[in-house]
């Protein structure tokens, strides 16, 4: 029984219960004590007190999208760097070379984007 997974299951249930209980209580309270009152003005877009004019769904310039993609790539890269950084001292040379190759591949992408001129904001 020692290494049975029952302990883990109990822990998971307790964790989920601990999170869900206040939410359930809050939902219960809201059902009785804070009735929903949607209104024309309340659900309108907040425009500094004015009536919203024009539409917010417009075509944005493409640079935003490219900036977003470049950021995403490097964000994911840092996640992969984390285990590498943590176990850095105990790594062999081969692991080190593999990591550097991974890094250089991404940096090469950045250099290409830079030369292509995506980063300069016209």
């Amino acid at each position: 029984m020692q290494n049975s997974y029952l302990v883990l299951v109990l822990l998971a249930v307790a964790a989920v219960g601990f999170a869900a209980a206040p939410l359930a209580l809050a939902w219960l309270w809201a059902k009785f004590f804070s009735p929903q009152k949607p209104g024309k003005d309340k659900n309108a877009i907040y425009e500094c007190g004015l009536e919203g004019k024009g539409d917010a769904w417009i075509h944005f310039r493409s640079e935003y999208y490219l900036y977003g993609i470049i950021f995403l790539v490097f964000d994911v890269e840092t996640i992969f760097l984390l285990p590498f950084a943590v176990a850095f001292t105990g790594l062999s040379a081969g692991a080190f070379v593999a990591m550097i190759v991974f890094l250089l591949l991404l940096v090469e992408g950045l250099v290409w984007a830079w030369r292509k001129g995506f980063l300069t904001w016209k």
Partner: protein
Amino acid sequence: MIDEGLKSELQKQGVYVTSMQELYNWGRANSVWPLTFGLACCAIEMMAASMARFDLARFGAEVFRPSPRQADLMIVAGTVTKKMAPLVVRLYNQMPEPKYVIAMGACAISGGPFKQGYNVLKGIDRYLPVDVAIPGCPPRPEALLHAIMTLQEKILNQKLTGPDRPRHLNADVEGEYPVPTYGPHDLQPSKNSEVWQPPPIQR
């Protein structure tokens, strides 16, 4: 409710008894988040009240939320002009439900020194239900602190159930007030008669 004698008796033994209503009101009273709604000179006194010397933070109200979605107290600090009135009412409508209004300064109460102006609304209580009104032009920061304390007392005494429970707790009371529109010389309608019932004139 729990009678005081039993409550103090238990407190001596270190047992604290409270009711759901007290806990609910206590939580809401001590964390009233005001909306940054500075119109004129009173706004500067409101800012001075939230700064280090007069310190609105002692009453849990120093978090000034710029957007009405996250605020539950609107301090109308300054002169409400007829051009600004529809926006004030629309902002009030866009605030989540347990919401209160403090009319700070003589201008927000009745037009104040600018009463004869053609573009000045004679008090915000023509369109909005005002909970606490602070006289003064501008009222001193201490007066604003006293208004916050008065508001906290009002929240603490609110009932959770029963006929005289506050507006936000019963479903059929409409939480929104009609937004006036701009007319040729005045707002249309010039006052919201459902909210604005002045006592008869003593003359």
